[in-house]
């Protein structure tokens, strides 16, 4: 039966400010060089409920959609305003999340007071833009595809108004498709096996395909399968489950591989028994031993759940997870980032029993230059679009979930122009006990029900796990794209919070990569088996094959294990809170993952083979020291211009336009925000967040990442990144762990490696051994850093194929590691901010400066890399951080800013940004050694701080810091930054000009920090 469709058009009344339209016109001129004239925006809805009359639709539109102050409404007619000649319609493709349409359905249900179907799509939202000028269709389409949407997500209609406005409303799905096919592997040649893997996006290599073929060739197994009603040969569903479970994304095969490592510089050779086991887990085991020996037993759960957990105090746990979402962000930046942040939120939410309260988000982003002017490869998005889209995704993902985004970084390097890196972090707090059970433990007993909670299943995100495990090319599959729905997840989150506290849930996990196949496959190992009845899974629309249902990565879903006796109460709570819960099977102890569709078995895999059947890889690594030399740069007498250029450079300039669009203080607990001071423009080193309103305990959060240093030396890049994150926490007043017995100061670190394809292949990856050697060195530095500071890793992630290949060109990211660090702060009122506070406070440099301009931002100004990479001396750094901690215990430090990009000069400048009128008068003569002025000002030596001390505290401060502090000068009230050295004035300029150079840098120019448009 054909249902009548009605349309509702909302346009702004004449004279109302159309910010959206103005922005489109401005962006079209700025980014595409298109003169559009005025642009008017409008909202268009298609309503397709059976039996709804036109007058009901009109009443609904007037009562629920129209803002009587702003809008005019038209039913079933789409007319352009007078004088507008072209139009662009932006609709969503079939099956794409349409939250706005769903909200309209909820509104209609409230309006009619009838329980209508709001779970599948009947109202479709679209945007319509009327353009004043008559533009050719090609220009309109460009505008649509490059500014208004993404052709993987959206459907566009464009044209001349005179020809009539063409509408598009998706008609998702088709008939039911219950087919499961059998795939015969026996007798396939190696070539055929590889082709099968490629054709189906299994992303499995030859030994893995052979292992599967051989498994299914066993006569006893074949006989057993037939007895169970399964075909002897594997089903499509089984191969898909194996491919997801064995994906690099899920199994971390390269971090588990045996590595034959040769250092050609030293001649050393060694065989590494897995990077994860040797360096990451190895380091944490050693740290935990040291901690426990000293009565610090706060390390509760590491590496074995969705997120790591450490103890805050006897009542509560801190849960911390950072992940990447790179491949999806490359092809759909908004969708990739929003699903990245929402997906990462689900990790702490579903750790242990589940139901942690989210406390904050962080994000660290790596992009190509947003002002890139060259040609793009096929399928490659412009870096500015990726930047804009990712930023918006993080804004919506965080803000709409009510989770503050408290800390982050943006790094620009052209090698991120193919695949951007999108790191999403989430911290959360969980009670130690939930309904009398240890909250961090996952327990499942045979007989427990499998409940799917949250959103419904569609074709979105099929093959995400395998897709992210291969390099991107121009033929990236559209089904890998998903759009998150923060509101659906918020409802599920509110529900989990209550259900876990009432003891209704045995344990939970999230549905991320691999969907139900991964979540149930993993949980099944706890009880020893599971049976899934796939036909019970609620779908967004019909037409999914069974294996697609099992693999779909449709967002906002949790898998819960529930005691049968608690099921009714749980389902009732779900109904009350409008969260869809479906009983889709049960756990058992039979040793296998069994999947049924309409009572017919379609998969039966032993858990042993599923989880331990993947063959271990052996990889080759060879280190050759790269050629590097120091450039000859003529010394200057005056570095004022140099400093202004540095402050306006891409990697140093202000990120305010980005930061202000993230809510960084919802929940009311943020104490150190990204930007502080009277001006709200002083950048801070680490965020500090209170846990609750009843105590002053909190957590400091920082991120260390220095990819460019890796071009000189991967070990020192990794060590420096780790130190950067540590010193940022020390700078805000954090204390190193384990300095005294039982001090109970937790630290929790997530390591996140994002590297290019590092598997050697003479044809397609000839420098793979060198890349892998860099990864080995990064891991070695990580182990050394953890052991030196006694800081444990609690969770992490590796992303191994960050390459973009198209038109015969490969863009590979530089080997990158991010250390995301958190540490307990005893009293948030005692922390330290970066900005100078008051004239006559005395300024010191803490730590030692070396001639280490290699990889610096200063050299970058000259397009040089240099050779002298900054190196961390862990012992000296630890000693300094301990002393800084002592000074902070006595409240002696008024401001502290760590030195990083741009060195001392930039840190000094930034320290003046907090208030108008303050300056600093400094002489570098007190710094020991024979360093050049450029090294003194711009060297990026690690483990250093600029601090200011009240005059009355100078003696006490110097007696603690001793030789580690060099007195440079004092804070002044004249608004000038003056730096002298050996009788020369190296720097002399107004701090307002410094801040202007920083604020007007390329990031704020790109994202826009212009004053609000005048409202007429």
């Amino acid at each position, binding site marked *: 039966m054909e249902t009548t469709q009605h349309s509702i058009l909302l346009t702004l009344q004449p004279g109302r400010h159309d910010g959206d339209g103005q922005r489109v016109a401005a962006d079209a001129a700025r980014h595409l060089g298109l003169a559009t004239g005025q642009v008017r925006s409008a909202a268009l809805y298609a309503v397709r409920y059976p039996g709804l009359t036109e007058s009901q639709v009109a009443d609904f539109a007037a009562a629920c959609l129209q803002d009587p102050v702003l809008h005019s409404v038209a039913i079933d007619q789409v007319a352009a305003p007078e004088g507008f000649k072209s139009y662009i319609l932006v609709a969503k493709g079939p099956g794409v999340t349409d939250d706005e349409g769903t909200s309209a359905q909820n509104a209609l249900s409230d309006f009619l007071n009838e329980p209508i179907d709001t779970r599948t799509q009947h109202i479709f939202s679209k945007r319509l833009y009327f353009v004043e000028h008559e533009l050719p269709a090609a220009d309109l389409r460009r505008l649509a595809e490059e500014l208004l949407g993404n052709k993987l997500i959206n459907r566009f209609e464009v044209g001349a108004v005179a020809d009539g406005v063409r509408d598009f409303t998706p008609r998702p799905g088709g008939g039911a498709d219950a087919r499961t096919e059998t795939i015969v592997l026996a007798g396939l040649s190696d070539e055929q096996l590889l082709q099968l893997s490629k054709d189906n996006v299994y992303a499995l290599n030859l030994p893995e395909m052979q292992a599967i073929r051989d498994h299914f060739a066993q006569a006893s197994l074949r006989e057993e399968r037939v007895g169970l009603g399964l075909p002897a040969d594997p089903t499509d569903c089984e191969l898909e489950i194996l491919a997801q479970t064995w994906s690099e994304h899920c199994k971390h095969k390269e971090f588990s591989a045996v590595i034959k490592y040769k250092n050609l510089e030293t001649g050393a050779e060694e065989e590494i028994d897995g990077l994860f086991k040797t360096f990451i887990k190895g380091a944490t085991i050693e740290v935990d031993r040291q901690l426990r020996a000293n009565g610090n037993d706060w390390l509760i759960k590491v590496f074995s759940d969705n997120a790591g957990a450490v103890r805050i105090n006897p009542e509560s746990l801190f849960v911390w997870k950072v992940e990447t979402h790179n491949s999806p962000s490359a092809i759909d930046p908004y969708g990739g980032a929003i699903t990245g942040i929402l997906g990462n939120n689900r990790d702490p939410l579903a750790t242990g029993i589940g139901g942690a309260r989210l406390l904050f988000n962080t994000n660290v982003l790596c992009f190509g230059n947003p002002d890139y002017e060259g040609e793009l490869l096929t399928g490659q998005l412009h870096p500015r679009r990726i930047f804009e889209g990712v930023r918006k995704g993080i804004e919506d993902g965080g803000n709409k979930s009510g989770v503050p985004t408290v800390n982050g970084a943006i790094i620009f390097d052209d090698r991120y122009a193919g695949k951007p890196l999108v790191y999403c972090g989430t911290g959360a707090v969980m009670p130690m006990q939930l309904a009398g059970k240890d909250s961090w433990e996952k327990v499942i007993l045979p007989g427990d029900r499998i409940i799917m909670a949250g959103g419904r299943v569609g074709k979105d995100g099929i093959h995400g796990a395998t897709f992210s495990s291969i390099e991107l090319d121009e033929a990236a599959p559209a089904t890998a794209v998903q759009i998150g729905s923060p509101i659906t997840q918020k409802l599920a989150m509110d529900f989990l919070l209550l259900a876990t506290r009432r003891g209704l849930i045995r344990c939970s996990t999230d549905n991320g990569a691999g969907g139900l196949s991964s979540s149930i496959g993993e949980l099944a190992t706890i009880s020893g088996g599971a049976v899934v009845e796939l036909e019970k899974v609620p779908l967004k629309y019909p037409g999914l094959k069974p294996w697609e249902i099992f693999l779909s990565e449709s967002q906002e879903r949790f898998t819960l294990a529930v005691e049968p006796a608690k099921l009714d109460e749980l389902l009732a709570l779900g109904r*009350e809170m409008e969260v869809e819960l479906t009983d889709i099977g049960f756990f058992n102890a039979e040793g296998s993952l069994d999947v049924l569709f309409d009572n017919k078995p379609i998969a039966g895999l032993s858990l042993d083979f599923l989880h331990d059947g993947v063959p271990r890889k052996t990889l080759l690594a060879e280190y050759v020291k790269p050629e590097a030399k120091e450039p000859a740069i003529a010394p200057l007498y005056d570095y004022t211009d140099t400093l202004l250029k540095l402050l306006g450079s891409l990697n140093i300039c202000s990120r305010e336009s980005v930061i202000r669009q993230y809510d960084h203080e919802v929940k*009311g607990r943020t104490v150190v925000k990204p930007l502080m001071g009277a001006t709200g423009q002083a950048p801070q080193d680490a965020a500090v967040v209170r846990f609750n309103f009843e105590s002053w305990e909190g957590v400091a959060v920082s991120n260390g990442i220095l990819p460019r240093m890796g071009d000189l030396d991967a070990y020192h890049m990794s060590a420096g990144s780790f130190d950067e994150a540590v010193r940022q926490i020390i700078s805000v007043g954090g204390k190193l762990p384990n300095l005294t017995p039982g001090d109970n100061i937790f630290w929790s670190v997530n390591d996140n490696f994002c590297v290019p394809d590092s598997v050697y292949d003479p044809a397609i990856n000839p420098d793979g051994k060198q890349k892998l050697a860099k990864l080995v060195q990064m891991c070695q530095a990580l182990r050394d850093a953890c052991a030196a500071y006694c800081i444990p890793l609690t969770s992490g992630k590796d992303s191994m194929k960050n390459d973009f290949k198209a038109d015969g060109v490969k863009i590979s990211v530089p080997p990158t590691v991010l250390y995301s660090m958190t540490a307990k702060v005893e009293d948030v*009122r005692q922390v330290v901010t970066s900005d100078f506070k008051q004239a006559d406070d005395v300024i010191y440099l803490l730590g030692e400066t070396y001639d280490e301009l290699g990889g610096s931002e200063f050299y970058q100004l000259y397009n040089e890399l240099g050779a002298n990479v900054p190196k961390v001396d862990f012992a000296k750094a630890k000693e300094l951080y301990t002393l800084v901690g002592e000074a902070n215990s006595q409240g002696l430090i008024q401001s502290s800013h760590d030195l990083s990009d741009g060195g001392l000069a930039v840190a000094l400048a930034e320290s003046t940004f907090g208030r108008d009128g303050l300056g600093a008068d400094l002489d570098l003569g007190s710094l020991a050694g024979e360093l050049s002025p450029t090294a003194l000002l711009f060297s990026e030596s690690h483990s250093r701080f600029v601090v200011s001390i009240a005059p009355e505290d100078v003696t006490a401060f110097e007696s603690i810091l001793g030789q580690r502090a060099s007195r440079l000068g004092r804070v002044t009230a004249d608004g000038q930054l003056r730096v002298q050295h050996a009788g020369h004035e190296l720097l002399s300029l107004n701090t307002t000009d410094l801040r202007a150079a920083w604020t007007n840098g390329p990031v704020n120019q790109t994202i826009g920090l212009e004053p*609000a448009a005048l*409202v007429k």
Partner: protein
Amino acid sequence: MTHDTASQALPKALILTGFGINCEEEMAAAYRLAGAAPTIVHLNEVLHGRVSIHDFDVLNFPGGFSFGDDLGSGVVLANKLRYRQTGTDGRTLLSDIREFVAAGKFVLGICNGFQVLVKLGLLPNLGGDFQPEVTLTHNASGRYEDRWVRLKVNAQTKTPTPFLSELTSFEVPVRHGEGRLVVPDAATRERIVALGLNCLTYAGHDDQETGTYPLNPNGADLNCAGLTDPTGHIFGLMPHPEAYLAGCNHPDWGMKKRRGELKDEGEGLAIFKNIVTHLIRRTQEASAPATHA
């Protein structure tokens, strides 16, 4: 004279949550710190009749993104309160709210909650019939922004709302994309100004009203940050006083600490203390011995 009857029961604040509301915890903390007894409930518990708003003294709509701000901020939630029938007799939550206010009780909406009150017609309610008279829409900048602003309390308000008692100006963060108040016509604007219902305006460092961005972060008509109804019982504002419960929430608290002026308590708490004090005093007055009347 004794206060025993008054001191027995703390004022009761009902805080609604669910459907994307996300500032309920800090709002509850604000009331707790101010000396009231807050209760957070899911809106459905009220709509399904398990919790009655009439058992409380203040009804609160916290900030957040109810229904994701789809269809316009606060619209779908306001729609639910106006149309969703809570029983078989055609009653809606809006009918309950009318009775609640008529009984002399108080309603507070912050950010998304303020947007709900405006879209529901509870503010400014010049006509007394709960019809939308103004609206809140996209910031002039077209962007969501989180920044701190200074607010000035309108001294000309005819019936000042007790939430703002004795306050003249204070700082708070704004965190919204749709906070621009639009008053559709001059007549409405004149009536709002005449009654002083524009009880909070964006101000510069000199405490003078300003339309300059970013001091006025959204381009609101009348530079208005908050509205009260003609009775002073309904109050809503875009900025977030519940996000400034501790002195160290302020972006420049480091300077206050340097000067020894940092307080544990944040300025945003005053609004909650005001209403709690007002409720306690009213209860005391109601229960005072007849001879004092």
